[in-house]
C-alpha cells in the first residue's frame, strides 16, 4: 500500500518536474529571442547578467529538472527544436538576428564534430576552420558547376572528411603535443595555400548562389500566410535540422559501444588496447565523423553567406571553434549552444569589441582554463539508465 502510494507520489512529482523543465526551456527561448533581437548595449548586458544569475542560482535545483528531461530524450529534443522554431518565427521580419541564429547553429554543428574528436576520443584538432573551409570551397566549386544543392552539402562533408584522411596517418602516428602541431601546421597551410592560389579566387575569394532544394529557393522571402518572412527563415530551418541531427547523432554515438570505445581511448590508450579496443580504428572513425560535420556546416555556411574568402578560415578561426568547446564544457554537446551564442553573437552586437574579439577570446579561454577548466556545462559521467539520476 505505502509502496504504491510512494510510487504514485514519485510519478506525480516527476510530471511536475517535467512541467517546470518545460517552462524553463520556454524561458530560455524567450531569453534567446530577446538576446538576438536587441540592439541596445544596456539590454544585452542586462540579459547576460540575468543569465549568469540564473546559472548561479539555478545550479542547485537544475539537476532534478534536467533528469526529468533526460528521461524523455525525444521529447527534450523536440522541445528544443520547437523553441528555436518559435524564436525564428518571432524574429521573422528581422534578417540580421536570423542570420546570426543560423551562424550560431552552423557553428554548433561544426563544434559537435570537433567535440566528437576532442571531447570524446581525445584527438586534438586545431584545424577545425580548415575543414569548415574545405566544405565551403567544395560547395563554391560544385555549385558553380550546376551540381544539385543537397548533393553539394553532402559533398562538402565528404570532401572535408577526405581532406582529413590526408592527416589520418600523421594523427595516428603522433600524440599529444605532436598531434597538435600537425593539425596546427595543416590549419595554417590551408589558409596560406588559399591566399596564394589564384585558381580558387586567391585572397578575393569566391561568390556563391543561394541554396535551391528542388525548386525551394532559399533566397526568396517566405509567405507565412499572415505576413512575409525574411528568406533567412529557410536557412534557419535547414541549419536547425542539421544542428538537431548532429546533436542527436552525437548523443547516440556517445551512448553506443563506439562512444564507450572513444572514452576508453581518450582516458588511456594502452589500457583500451589491452581490452581489445581498436585504438586506431576508433581514432579514424572519430576524426572522419568530426571532419564530415565540419565540412557540412561549412558548405551550408558558404551558400548562406554567398561569399567566402581565405580569411574566413584562418588559424584564428580554428581557435574560435576550440574556444567554443572549452567555454561550453568539453565533451558535452549541450554546452556548445550557449557557448556559441556568447562567442559569436556578443561581438556582432557590440561593434566596438568586434576588433578586439580574438584578444578577448584568448583572455577568456585562459581565464576559464585557470579557474573553471570544466567549462560552463561540464560533461557528466554517463548514466547507465538514462534519467535514473545515478
Amino acid at each position, binding site marked *: 500500500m505505502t509502496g504504491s502510494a510512494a510510487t504514485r507520489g514519485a510519478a506525480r512529482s516527476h510530471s511536475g518536474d517535467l512541467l517546470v523543465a518545460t517552462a524553463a526551456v520556454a524561458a530560455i527561448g524567450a531569453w534567446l529571442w530577446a538576446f538576438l533581437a536587441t540592439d541596445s548595449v544596456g539590454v544585452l548586458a542586462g540579459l547576460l547578467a540575468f543569465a549568469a544569475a540564473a546559472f548561479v542560482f539555478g545550479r542547485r535545483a537544475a539537476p532534478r529538472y534536467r533528469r526529468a528531461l533526460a528521461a524523455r530524450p525525444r521529447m527534450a529534443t523536440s522541445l528544443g527544436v520547437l523553441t528555436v522554431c518559435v524564436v525564428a518565427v518571432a524574429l521573422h521580419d528581422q534578417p540580421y538576428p536570423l542570420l546570426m541564429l543560423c551562424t550560431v547553429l552552423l557553428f554548433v554543428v561544426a563544434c559537435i564534430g570537433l567535440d566528437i574528436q576532442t571531447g570524446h576520443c581525445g584527438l586534438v584538432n586545431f584545424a577545425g576552420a580548415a575543414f569548415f573551409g574545405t566544405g565551403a570551397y567544395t560547395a563554391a566549386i560544385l555549385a558553380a558547376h550546376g551540381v544539385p544543392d543537397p548533393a553539394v552539402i553532402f559533398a562538402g562533408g565528404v570532401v572535408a572528411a577526405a581532406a582529413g584522411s590526408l592527416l589520418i596517418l600523421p594523427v595516428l602516428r*603522433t600524440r599529444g603535443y605532436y598531434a*597538435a602541431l600537425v593539425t596546427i*601546421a595543416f590549419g595554417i597551410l590551408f589558409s596560406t595555400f588559399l591566399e596564394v592560389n589564384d585558381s580558387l579566387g586567391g585572397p578575393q575569394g569566391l561568390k556563391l548562389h543561394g541554396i535551391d532544394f528542388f525548386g525551394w529557393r532559399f533566397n526568396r522571402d517566405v509567405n507565412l500566410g499572415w505576413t512575409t518572412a525574411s528568406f533567412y527563415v529557410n536557412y534557419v530551418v535547414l541549419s536547425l535540422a542539421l544542428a538537431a541531427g548532429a546533436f542527436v547523432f552525437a548523443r547516440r554515438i556517445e551512448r553506443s559501444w563506439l562512444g564507450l570505445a572513444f572514452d576508453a581511448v581518450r582516458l588511456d590508450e594502452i589500457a583500451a588496447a589491452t581490452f581489445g579496443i581498436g585504438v586506431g580504428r576508433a581514432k579514424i572513425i572519430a576524426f572522419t565523423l568530426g571532419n564530415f560535420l565540419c565540412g557540412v556546416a561549412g558548405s551550408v555556411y558558404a551558400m548562406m553567406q554567398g561569399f567566402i574568402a581565405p580569411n574566413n578560415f584562418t588559424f*584564428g578561426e580554428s581557435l574560435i571553434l576550440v574556444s567554443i568547446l572549452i567555454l561550453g564544457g568539453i565533451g558535452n554537446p549541450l554546452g556548445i549552444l550557449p557557448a556559441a551564442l556568447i562567442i559569436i553573437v556578443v561581438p556582432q552586437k557590440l561593434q566596438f569589441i568586434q576588433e578586439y574579439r580574438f*584578444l578577448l*577570446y584568448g583572455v577568456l579561454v*585562459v581565464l576559464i*582554463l585557470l579557474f573553471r577548466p570544466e567549462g560552463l556545462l561540464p560533461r557528466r559521467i554517463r548514466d547507465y539508465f538514462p534519467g535514473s539520476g545515478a
Partner: protein
Amino acid sequence: MDAGVLAQYVFNGVMLGVIYAMVAVGFTLFFGVLDVIQFAHGDVVMAGAFVGLATYVALHVLGVAAPAVVVFAVACAAGLGMALVGAVIARWLILPLRAAPAFNTLLVTLMLGSILRELVRLFYPNGSNPQPFPRLLPSASVNLGHFTLRLDTTILIIAGLVMIVAVNLVVRRTRLGLAIRAVAQDSETARVMGIDFERVVLVTFAIGSALAGFAGVVYGLYYNEVNFDIGLLLGVIGFSAAVVGGLGSIYGAILGGFLFAALQTVGSVALPVSSAYNNVFAFAVVIVLMTWKPTGLIAERASERV
C-alpha cells in the same frame, strides 16, 4: 649551377638556420624542465622583435644615433623584456596548470600566442601592417662572382651562434646549468637535493625566452621588416626543429633548425612553383617529417613515461 649562386643559397640558409635554431633551443629547454610545449614561443620571438623596434624608435626620438649603442640597446631591451615575459608566463600560466591535463597547458599557451599577436596588432601603432625594421648594421659587402658576402648578415650569423653557444655553456658548465639539468632529469630528486624547483623553472623560461627575444631582433635586422604574424611560422618551425632533433636535447634542436633551413632553401630552389608557396611547402614538410619520425630523428630514450 654556378658555385657562387650555390654559395649564396648556403649562406642565406645558414642565416635562416641560426634563427630557427635559436627558437628551437627555447622549446627544447622548456620541454626539458617541465615536459611542456610553450606554443606561444614563436609569438615571444615576434614580441621581442617589436620591443626591439620600439626601443629603436624611442632612442631615435631621444637623439641617440651611435649605431653600436643603438644595436646594443635594442638587443638588450628585446632580450631582457622577453626574459621577463617568459618568467611571467611560467609563473602565472604554466606552473599553475601542472596538475591539469596536458591539453589545458597546450590550449593556454596557444591562446597566449593569440593574445600576444593581437596585442601587437591592435596596440602597436599601425601594427596590423608590416613594420620596416631599421638597418642598424654596417652594410658593406664583398662581391665574389655571383656570391655577395654581406657584412651585416655575417655579423648576425656570428652573433646568433655566440648566443646559442653561450646558452649551451650555461646549461653544461655552470652550477645553474647543473640545477636545470637535474630538474630536467628528475624533478623530485632535484628537490630533495635542495634545488628550488620553481626558481629553476622560472630561470629556464627566462633564458629560453631571452634567446627568443634576440632571435626576434636578428630576424628583424636580417629581413628589415617585421609583422605581427611572423610568430606562427617561427613557432611551428621552431617546435618541429626541436622535435626532429629530439626534444630535450640542445644539440638536436640546433641540428633540427639547420635541417629545416636547408629543406626550405632546397625547396625554394628545386620546386617549380613560385616563391609564394614557400610557407605552404614549409608547413607540408613539418607534417611529413612529423609523420615519418613522430619523436624525432634522434629518438627519445623513453617515448612515454608511465
